């Protein structure tokens, strides 16, 4: 398993309709944790660097929306073999290819985690899926997957 690194990004909590209407920049990945909650990471941040200044610059969406820097998640991109290995520790059905890209959330190896499953097009460069979890669970998850 690749080592996890901090995923720096921006957490936005706003009304679902507001978030539905946002067109995210092409160099970002928007992970919709909930209808009113999205974690936006830029591709560079999600790829490797872990630079603390990688926060995505976004305009505030609505006066009362919450826009906060987020560094509480760690993760790593997985290639096809690594994804297959992780899938052996998942007791739920992965979303089918037709539904991807998609964020799946649930227990992986008994640890709360998330799996962003890329499309085939995104997956050509060994980025089939982004595995992420709260930093507080990282040690437990990676130990169980190793």
């Amino acid at each position, binding site marked *: 398993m690749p080592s996890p690194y*901090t995923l*720096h990004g921006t*957490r936005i*909590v*706003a*009304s679902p309709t507001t978030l539905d209407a946002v067109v995210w920049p092409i160099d970002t990945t928007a992970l919709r944790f909930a209808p*009113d*909650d999205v974690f936006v990471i830029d591709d560079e941040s999600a790829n490797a660097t872990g630079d*603390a200044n990688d926060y995505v610059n976004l305009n505030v969406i609505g006066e*009362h*929306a*919450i826009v*906060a*820097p*987020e*560094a*509480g*998640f760690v993760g790593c991109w997985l290639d096809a073999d690594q994804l297959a290995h992780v*899938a*052996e*520790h*998942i*007791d*739920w*059905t*992965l979303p089918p290819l037709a539904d991807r890209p998609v964020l799946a959330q649930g*227990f992986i*190896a*008994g*640890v*709360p985690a998330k799996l962003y499953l890329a499309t085939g097009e995104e997956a050509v460069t060994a980025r089939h899926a982004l595995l992420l979890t*709260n*930093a*507080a*669970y*990282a*040690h*437990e*998850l990676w130990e*169980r997957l190793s």
Partner: protein
Amino acid sequence: MTGTTSTGTPRIIFDGQPIPYAVGDSVAMAVLRAGQHPHHGGTLCLAGDCPSCVCEVGGIAYVRTCQTPATPGLSIRRHPEIGAPALRPVPQPDVTRPPVLADISVRRIEADLVVIGRGDSGRAAAGDAERAGRSVTVLDAADGNEVVAIYSGPTVIVRRSDAMVHVHAHDIVVATGAAELHPVCPGNMLIGIVTARAAEQMHAAGVDLGVAVAVGVAPVAVPCTVLDGTIVEVVGEPTSGRVTGVVTTSGTAVCDTLIVGLGLSGRDLLSRMTGPDQPVTLVGPASEKFALPACPTEGIICPCSKVAVEDLQGVWDRGFHELELVKRASLCGTGTCQGGVCGPYLRSFVADRSGSVPEPFTARPASRQITLGEASADVYTDAFRRSPLHDEHLALGARLDRFGTWFRPWNYGDPIAEYWAVREAVSLGDVSTLGKLLVSGPDAVELLERLYPTTVADIRVGRSRYVLLLNERGHLIDDGMICREGENRFVLTFTSGGAANAEMWVRDWVETWNLNVHILDQTMSLAAINVTGPLAAELLGRLGVDEPPKFLQHIHADVAGVPCHVMRLSFTGEASFELHHAVDRSVELWRALMGAGQDLGIKPHGLQALFGLRLEKGHVIVGMDSEMDSTPRRLNMDWAVKMGKPDFLGKSALARTNELPNERRLFGFTIEGDAPTEGSPIYAADDNGVERLAGHVASSFTSPLLGHGIMLGWIKKLPWPHTVTIDGRTATVAEPPFYDPQGRRARA
């Protein structure tokens, strides 16, 4: 004792005695070949449907020996005739460590169409599907893939010798064929009764059946006499328990083996484990609606639990008239074969008594006995969270323990030194585990006014307030702080153990009240370090905070270059600053604080010291000092409730219960010498001077500063006593705080 004879004939060990077997024999066949019975009687099907051949094999109980190949030296023990096989003693587990589970792996695979069973109907279904372009996975016990369950999803659970396999399937076809009916009549638990198919197998294997008599459909190519009619009674020899004859409605016959061909029953157990909306299809004999057998009048109907027809009648007479109720009340259908043998008779019984034929009962996994190791394979123990400072704590010699789903430092080797560092110098505490919610929106004030029993609208921006969280019954469910960040923006904190429930609680009420509020849970996004002690402000000053906030105020400031939300409060009784910051900067901040505080006598403190420090101040820990039904009045915390507010959760309940006699309350106690153990009973004298149980100690601490024990504890007896007896010693009731009652040090 070896697994072969001197001539090389392989042997198994049955009840401690070696018996030879033929190549290809199952264990059951080898036992029958030796003239013995794998159980203590009952009809044998040799198809895995009945409980009459289950034994302890290789130390594992409830193994179907007809499905178990005989191998040299394999040890088999019969189960006791009555009751369950004895559990083997296991060493006392170490409860402080996660349980050690059997090393059985789970493989998870995805499949398009799963066909269970590769008999005629299974092969036909698989062939049809493949011709239609489907990808087919066929699972059959004969290939080592024993299907034991289907869960909604659907997921097929397969037992293999080397692993458990979870197959996530899009569609499932159950083609498991049909089982043979067993006789239910007097004498049906004798040794020497076999089904027609079993007789065919035994004959083909060269097992001597002796004088064989068949009733019903006769076996193919098995020498036997066919007796017409239905079975009235099987006759046996009392000492050996063996069959000696059979009586039917048409006559009597003497025999060594009774062969029964009484009809079939679809093996549909697996298909009944999932709901009707699941893509599970029955095909072939498994799907057929075979005629039910006639309702029995005598005999054992359930060979697993030894339930007789008269037992069912007793259950019926007590008013259990539905199939599921009869099953549960009699245990008929709950045993080893899960209704494989008794199911048709049970339905027949209910149909006879009620006049309508009930559908088969719902089946529940597993259809076969599996070991606890197989059941728990790949089941993970709870995941405990780690603070970003976890490794820093370990490097400092911390003893970590589990609290509220987190690993937290209990102490760093010297809790008394940690205590004094807080009281006399400066200390760091890792409070990253506190719940932290950011609440924003035009209805934020209204939400918090409704949630909390204190006033919120009058909290000025930059100020904070301690709050109780009550449920509708006015019982304390959590506590924490409200920090006002803006006109409509607040940071809420909760206890470490209560954070998850508190978040759900707040979100539920936002939805219920349809308020326009956004919520972000930052519990695991933000770490927090509590800088506490009389030198805390000086330490912060060294790291760039020239003007630390005053008591119950909060600011945003960089501490050693790390952006922090600095909250001034106090749980220890000393000046305290909680530094909330991004988790990825926590180690950097911790090391900067520890480094800058060396000459100030800085030390980290663990929960052991913290629990004592807060007890000196009389601060309550929710769940430790409070009980499930603790109201603020019972906790002596009425001061945190503003009954004059228009409304808040729990107000009406408090208004009512506050008028009732207060028959229990949390008190403080002091005692000479060391503090008694938490949980100790508290005794108080009644009107006659007799000491009676009056409550218990919730938390206790031997105060280094005060030189005696202090406690919080519950008194559940009126009138409130002035002195009590704890641990055989006199303790004095004393209102906390025990230390700095004016709170000057916290505000310094």
